């Protein structure tokens, strides 16, 4: 018998997997409510209460504080809660189990999931942005490039947290519970329920490095045209590295 050599699924496999995930998303209309509807909902709830007083550079409190918070919440919700629960469904239904006996790697599944998820977030964020401009006279960030970069980094960091949740949860149902807990913990320490100034110093400091506070703060800075500080960016970078390492170490097919 000849020696068995390892064939790793190539670019074609990645492409077909990605297209398959896209088709599934497009065919599951109910699943589109969260990524597309949620941003607009969060925007409507928060924007109506926001003050219109200018805070500098021709930007209002809505632009500088509310919109960054809304966008951070959206990517946190999809990354930390939505993505792990989708993976949990995959695991519970045995889809991952079936893929686990093929040469497909976990990365193939996870990356395709993440790519499609991020695409959905992007569409959702753009839709919310259009709504904000039309209804609330929102102004674009002073530093557009950095703002987009920060949002992308925040999204990646939130997905990294989601990967950690998915990898470490003992059961599919616990993934949802742990994801929600993580979402609220990160949110609370990152200013979701009011500014971080009112938090105890230690929590405020930690929250400023964790993806929610870090993303929120950096996005806010970019919106006002202020320089984005290194601390939040490094914090998010570290989160991404931790997510990749932990999910690679602990990922299970079932």
């Amino acid at each position, binding site marked *: *018998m000849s020696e068995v050599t390892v064939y790793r699924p190539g670019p074609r496999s990645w492409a077909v997997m990605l297209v398959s995930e896209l088709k599934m998303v497009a065919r599951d209309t109910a699943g589109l409510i969260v990524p597309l509807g949620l941003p607009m909902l969060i925007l409507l709830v928060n924007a109506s209460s926001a003050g219109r007083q200018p805070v500098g550079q021709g930007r209002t409190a809505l632009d500088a504080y509310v919109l960054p918070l809304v966008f951070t919440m959206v990517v946190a919700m999809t990354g930390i809660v939505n993505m792990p629960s989708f993976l949990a469904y995959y695991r519970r239904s045995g889809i991952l189990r079936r893929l686990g006996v093929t040469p497909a790697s976990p990365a193939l599944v996870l990356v395709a999931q993440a790519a499609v998820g991020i695409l959905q977030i992007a569409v959702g964020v753009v839709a919310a942005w259009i709504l904000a401009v039309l209804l609330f006279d929102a102004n674009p960030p002073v530093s557009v490039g950095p703002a987009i970069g920060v949002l992308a980094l925040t999204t990646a960091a939130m997905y990294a947290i989601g990967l950690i949740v998915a990898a470490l949860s003992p059961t599919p149902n616990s993934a949802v519970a742990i994801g929600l807990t993580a979402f609220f913990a990160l949110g609370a320490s990152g200013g979701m329920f009011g500014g971080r100034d009112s938090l105890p110093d230690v929590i405020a400091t930690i929250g400023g490095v964790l993806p929610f506070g870090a993303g929120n703060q950096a996005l806010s800075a970019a919106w006002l045209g202020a320089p984005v500080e290194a601390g939040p960016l490094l914090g998010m970078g570290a989160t991404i590295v931790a997510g990749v390492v932990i999910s690679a170490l602990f990922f299970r097919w079932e």
Partner: protein
Amino acid sequence: MSATTATAAVEADRLYKRFRAKVAVDEVSLSIAYGEVFGLLGRNGAGKTTTVELIAGLRRPDRGTVSVLGLDVRRDRARLRQVLGVQLQEATLHATLTVAELVRLYATFYRDPVPAGELIESVGLTESARTRFANLSGGQQQRLSIALALVGRPRLVILDELTTGLDPEARRQMWATIEDLRVSGVTVVLVSHAMEEVERLCDRVALLDAGRVVALDSPAGLVRRAGFAQRVTFRAALPLPAGLLEDLDEVDRVHTGNGRVTVEGHGDLLQAVSVALVRAGVVATETRSEQAGLDDAFVALTGHRLDTEEDARR
């Protein structure tokens, strides 16, 4: 052990696996030859599925080792995945993808996949190629699942409950597929509780009961172990003269109950019994003759019927 020195396609040595208080697989050792079609037969909960999960490297045994095609199933996982095709009992596929989309997706995982159209046709799903997985009938889902097990041209195929839920025609089609695999030298491990299927397809069968291998032989060999080859039953109006049948060379055992006489034996049992009855002037009615089958062997070897699990399932 390197692939070139492996003498058996599957070499399992004293596999042991327990789930909490229940021992699922209890010291199971199997040696399955290259090109063999090997059956694992047993009732629900006998440990069949866990055994094949250990063989496929899906679970880690508490004790014991298993190598497949000369590869350690845990350490050489990546290499094993190239040459192993598995149809799992409890695994679904992406619900909203169609038959053709799923086959094409799985095909990309392998170096030299079977062309999608050819594979879909071979399991009789050509007309359903554009149907989503969730909208397929149970039997069609089963056939797709088998197709995906074969898409990478595996050298070892594990099929868990091959024809459960299939109609008779689809079942025959699946059996033909297994025969094709045999011809092309693929080793097949077939988990089943369908006697007819195992009797027809398998070179050898392991009977599993309560996690243990209680017998391992060819189907014909297992039948021989049941202790008899044939059985004749009839109804007699009068008691039989003592020793009338017992003294015949062909007869092994005679039971009487509920007005029926059951004679187990070998050779030309029916004729021997008929002649003896006629000579003694006994009028026999409702005479039936049957060959012992694997299900009789199962009862003899495990003490319970194989098909009771089906009743429990429904």
